[in-house]
């Protein structure tokens, strides 16, 4: 075991740092939260600069235009970009981290050619259409229907929690192609151009007062069958292949950010019992950072530990406790949100234990897959 990075890794860090210093010097100010057209431009401009410098698609294979970086280099990249306060992935999130890797694994040559270069250059923004009002934790029960009509599917249904739906050119959508099959076996994965007739996007207002989420309503939307990724009714498996791209580095930026917020909160005067709780938060974030490194070490060695499954649950709960601590420390100074990052933190962290697998679902998964406990007695259906 050692904490020191190799000389090669440190060289990568130094080169990246030099580039970041120069790139951030003339970065335009971040647009307001709800100015979606400006936000899209700001995020995709940054993506283009990453592309030009050779940092786009860091974890994508080289043959698809990525950098093919090692897990340790990815760790360093997220660490340095977060420390330098470089723009976060923003509207490029779904394309670079989810849809792109899915196309690399499962797409046809034509699908790859049509989309991968555009995603890397920031020319194409993706959104996600997975969840539905009736399909949250039980995602596989989704009901948006895709009926075959010649060489098209006709889509009808409703999606919710579509990240960046307001500004997306394309969406990755899960639809039901066989309503009679068992729920996991009748789903297909589609590339949905968001300008097709019959698609209505409505921004979703969250507890923050705004958000990157949207609801998407689909009424007789005709999508070419050629837009299907993977085999018909094999969409559930297709959605899961991207998981292998996530080598436990998913929360690196967030952890660096959490540590920065701890330092911000530490500057506010507080009673000693609250200070001790802050100390506790520091211990947890430091440990999760070490756990991330442990995941990366294990990935580099080709082994997998419990870390990747543990980190989502532990991180979201720890960060939520930190958010609550922020409000307790601020007292009545915490009653206004405007430019008060620590208050916004409390609101935003409410979502962490719900999004991308609620904590209760994560505990089921850990209990059953890692600890080998028996499954819950089968529910109806």
């Amino acid at each position, binding site marked *: 075991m050692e904490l020191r990075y190799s000389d090669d890794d440190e060289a990568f860090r130094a080169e990246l740092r030099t580039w970041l210093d120069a790139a951030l010097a003339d970065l335009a100010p971040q647009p307001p939260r709800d100015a979606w057209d400006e936000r899209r431009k700001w995020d995709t401009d940054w993506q283009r600069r990453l592309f030009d410098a050779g940092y786009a698609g860091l974890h994508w294979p080289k043959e698809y235009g990525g950098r093919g970086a090692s897990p340790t280099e990815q760790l360093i990249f997220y660490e340095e970009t977060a420390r330098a306060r470089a723009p976060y992935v923003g509207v490029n999130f779904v394309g670079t981290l989810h849809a792109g890797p899915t196309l690399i694994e499962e797409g046809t040559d034509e699908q790859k050619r049509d989309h991968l270069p555009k995603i890397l250059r920031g020319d194409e923004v993706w959104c996600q259409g997975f969840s539905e009002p009736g399909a949250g934790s039980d995602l596989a029960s989704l009901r948006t229907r895709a009926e075959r009509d010649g060489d098209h599917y006709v889509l009808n249904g409703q999606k919710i929690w579509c990240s960046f739906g307001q500004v997306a050119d394309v969406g990755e959508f899960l639809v039901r192609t066989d309503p009679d099959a068992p729920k996991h076996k009748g789903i297909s994965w589609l590339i949905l151009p968001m300008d097709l007739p019959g698609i209505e996007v409505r921004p979703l207002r969250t507890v923050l007062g705004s958000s990157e989420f949207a609801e998407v309503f689909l009424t007789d939307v005709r999508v070419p069958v050629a837009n299907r990724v993977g085999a018909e009714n094999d969409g559930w498996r297709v959605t899961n292949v991207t998981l292998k791209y996530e080598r436990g580095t998913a929360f690196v930026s967030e952890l660096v950010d959490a540590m920065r917020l701890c330092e911000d909160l530490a500057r506010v005067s507080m009673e000693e019992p609250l200070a*001790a709780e802050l100390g506790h938060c520091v*211990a947890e974030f430091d440990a*999760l950072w070490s756990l991330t490194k442990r995941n990366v070490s294990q990935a580099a060695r080709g082994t997998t530990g419990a870390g990747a499954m543990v980190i989502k649950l532990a991180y979201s709960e720890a960060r939520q406790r930190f958010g609550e601590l922020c409000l307790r420390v601020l007292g009545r100074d915490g009653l206004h949100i405007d430019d008060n990052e620590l208050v916004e933190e409390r609101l935003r962290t409410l979502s962490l234990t719900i999004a991308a697998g609620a904590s209760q679902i994560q505990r*089921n998964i850990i209990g059953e897959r890692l*600890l080998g406990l028996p499954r819950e007695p089968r529910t109806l259906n």
Partner: protein
Amino acid sequence: MDLDLSDDQVALRDGIASMLAARVPMDRVRSGFDRALAAELADAGVFTLRRDGFAWADAVVVFEQLGRACVPGPLVDSTLLGDGRSACLVSDQEPIWIECLDAVDVLVVWRAAGLECVVPGAVTADTSPWPLDPATPMARARSLPAGVPLDLGRDIRELVVAGAALTAAYQLGLADRVAEMAVAYARERVQFDRPIGSFQAIKHICADMLVRTEVARAAVYAAGAHLDERATLPGVERSVNGAKLLAGEAAIANGKAATQVYGGMGYTWEVDVHLYLKRAWLLDTRFGSVDRHAADLADVVRGRR
């Protein structure tokens, strides 16, 4: 950068685990620390890890296994002394409670002026008839006789930081093993015609035990590696604060959670869970408690340390 065990560390871990499985089964744990056990541990090299060339990161791996086996005795103190003798490290500040006074070779007394070696037989102390941890006899002294100055060639604070890291590793082992016991029980115990581990109420308790253990393990391994690299990497105290805090908390929380999973059986003397929980409580009083380390970390992040 590598926070996974090396091949050598895996061999070390497995070697110590099989030695402990053979020589220190739970009935021996229950009978407590004695000179025979001390001699066997010394013979296995536990007390001379550093002298024998092992890194702190290796020592951490060994202490995790000692914790898993719930091996009784002042093992961390003996390893810090590092010359093969069994030792109990005790401060001269009231209240003076000494662990395993009748079984250790030497008492290392920490005074404001420095460390001293005291012959255990020279200490007047009242032995508790009923210690919290039944495997760890506790004796209370009102004062400690003068001893011979001890120079370990290191600053005492440095010694305490290392002691906290090794204790954290032991607590990690406690947390890990007691979680494993609870999960095994949840798989086999049947109520309402089903294994209780199939119910989410129990499953989620078990999942939380695993999460606490894995987070603590990352902190403990990082602290061990940091001790080895302290000359080039600042902030070892912060690493150790976090490790002792999280491992201490994991050992106590998992002990309590396991008691709950075992139900009535968890409240019996017969089931081993209480031995793990009591050891966890005992060790939280050594080298800084959860609360002490949280306060220290608060000072670190506020720039006061």
